[in-house]
């Protein structure tokens, strides 16, 4: 095992796949020269693979998406990097009307369509309305897209390796506050399958389902509640939202009978609403309380610290909600 940053883990995944397959390319702004990767994910890859494969573009998201889509149609394995996930609005046609629909529209003429859209999201650093959003739920309602959302370096590398070769379009959500966090990964090559969640922490009293940076928040909550009231929280990270491992959530709910879903995206119409539906459909009889969700309040993400803190879920708010809702 070795200790590695989330950003380095992503880079290792890209680098290993680029060595294996000439068709793997990465397209985006400031990824090769200039900044050499806005969050240092692609640092050094330009020097190793050159401008044909580490493709710096002008500030033109529509073109970045289009280059990825065209390359995918030509049988390559493009990785499209949008610098901040918020900017995906600029090239949303490529997501909504093109890459997600090609397999269906062509009636199976593209059985293998490899395409990864990397979207760094997340608030908490005062980046404000246009550089902070978590947009997973928007993408969950587009048929044809698969969604991976790693919360740690191990999953970041393993999921990205799967995504690059998935044969289907993948939207890959990263988090700005996770890039510099560290974790252990094996020295040898590995990958993480889609549709398989993990139990991040075991517990018997309450289940928290969380993704991305919110797994860290859930861990803080679990640590504190154990200390303060002896409550043992189980944390489940589904790792991919599409496909969704509903069984691992069900297994946990059978044990704890209480479920809180924690996401950084906006609560209204969010990821938690979707997961909650599936839990209600399959595991309602095991629940002692209605499913609780905690996400960002229905607001634009503010820049100023007190307001930002009020909008984005944090340890204090989650504990507060647990106490109120589950009467503990």
């Amino acid at each position, binding site marked *: 095992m070795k200790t590695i940053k989330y950003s380095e883990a992503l880079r290792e995944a890209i680098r290993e796949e680029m060595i294996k397959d*000439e068709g793997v*390319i990465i397209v985006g702004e400031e990824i090769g020269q200039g900044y050499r990767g806005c969050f240092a994910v692609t640092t050094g890859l330009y020097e190793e693979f050159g401008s*044909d*494969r580490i*493709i710096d*573009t*002008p500030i*033109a998201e*529509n*073109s970045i*998406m*289009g*280059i*990825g*889509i*065209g*390359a*995918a*149609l*030509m*049988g*390559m394995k*493009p990785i499209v990097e949008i610098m901040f996930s918020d900017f995906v609005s600029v*090239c949303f*046609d*490529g997501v909504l*009307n*093109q890459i997600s*629909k*090609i*397999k*269906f*529209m*062509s*009636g*199976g*003429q*593209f059985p293998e369509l490899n395409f990864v859209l990397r979207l760094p999201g997340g608030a908490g650093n005062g980046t404000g309305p246009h550089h902070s959003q978590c947009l997973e739920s928007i993408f969950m309602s587009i*048929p*044809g897209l698969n969604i991976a959302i790693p919360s740690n370096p191990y999953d970041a590398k393993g999921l990205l390796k799967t995504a690059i070769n998935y044969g289907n379009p993948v939207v890959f959500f990263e988090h700005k506050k996770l890039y510099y966090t560290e974790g252990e990964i094996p020295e040898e090559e590995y990958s993480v399958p889609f549709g398989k969640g993990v139990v991040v922490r075991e517990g018997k009293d309450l289940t928290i389902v969380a993704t991305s940076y919110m797994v860290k928040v859930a861990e803080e909550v679990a640590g504190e509640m154990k200390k303060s009231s002896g409550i043992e929280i189980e944390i489940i990270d589904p790792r991919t939202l599409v496909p969704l491992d509903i069984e691992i959530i069900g297994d946990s709910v059978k044990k704890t009978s209480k479920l809180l879903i924690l996401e950084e995206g906006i609560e209204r119409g969010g990821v938690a609403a979707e997961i909650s539906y599936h839990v209600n459909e399959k595991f309602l009889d095991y629940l002692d309380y209605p499913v609780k969700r905690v996400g960002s309040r229905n607001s634009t993400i503010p820049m100023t610290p007190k307001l930002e803190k009020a909008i984005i879920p944090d340890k204090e708010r989650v504990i507060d909600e647990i106490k109120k809702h589950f009467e503990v």
Partner: protein
Amino acid sequence: MKLSKEKSLEFYEKMLLIRQFERKVYEFAVTAVVRGSVHLCIGEEAAAVGTVMSMEKSDYLLPTHRGHGQALAGGTDPKKLLAEIIGKETGLCKGRVGSMHFFDRENNNLGAQGIVGAQFPIALGVGKAIKNKKIKSCVLCFFGDGASNQGFFYESLNIASLWDLPIFFVCVNNLYGMGTHYKKTSKVGVTKKAELFGIKTKAVDGNDVEEVYSNSQDLIKYVKNNSKPVLLECKTYRWLGHSAFDNRPYRPKEEIASWKKLDPIERFKTKLLDMKIKKEEIEEIENNVGKIIAEAADFALKSSYPEFDESIMQ
């Protein structure tokens, strides 16, 4: 440029095939055999044939929403295309998507486009892949005059030029974006827009198949030899409405009449007769096209609609 007799007859047949095909689609539209809307290219046949038939096997095609003619010129089977347009399982894409969204990978057709202008950035990716794979090839990216006002266009011209991508932009300028004349949408002509980015351009009589073809051949050679984009504007006219159910209140009758005098097919037929090609030979082609269309219609009508199957869910 002098076309051989063989080539001339081939062009005539293809243009006629497109026209008869579109007439059949129109008939299917007004009798409600077709669902949704169809965008027909009657009057624009020379622009499709002269450009697409300059392609080599290794070249790629991105058609527009008015793309039946572009696909047929590229070798798409009329049976499968017609079946697709009326939603039958024997269609190119299993009948799922119809007129605006079909793909024909066998003929390097990477997808017609229901979003006006969305093909431009995709062409960049195809062009970049061609470059990376080091194949001698190019992509024909079709668009209408209306699409030249989309933001996609300018971004893509900029990058195509900046990176020297092998893209052959083909503008089928039929004067109207839906019901609005080009003059009401832009002060700048289409070729000027591309020239701003240092792209070589050419404007031709889009109703003269020989002129379109000879220029396309030169331009494709230029694209491949220099790995640089070009833009060809084919000035032509859409005889029918934007879609099959458009009464065209926005167009003066005299305008339609004057363009009909420039019918690309009739003009070319006159040339064939001037070349001393026998009437019987031309008639034989006409009969043959009639047969192909009748067979395609029969095939499409007799085919079944696809049944729902859970595997289509994603």
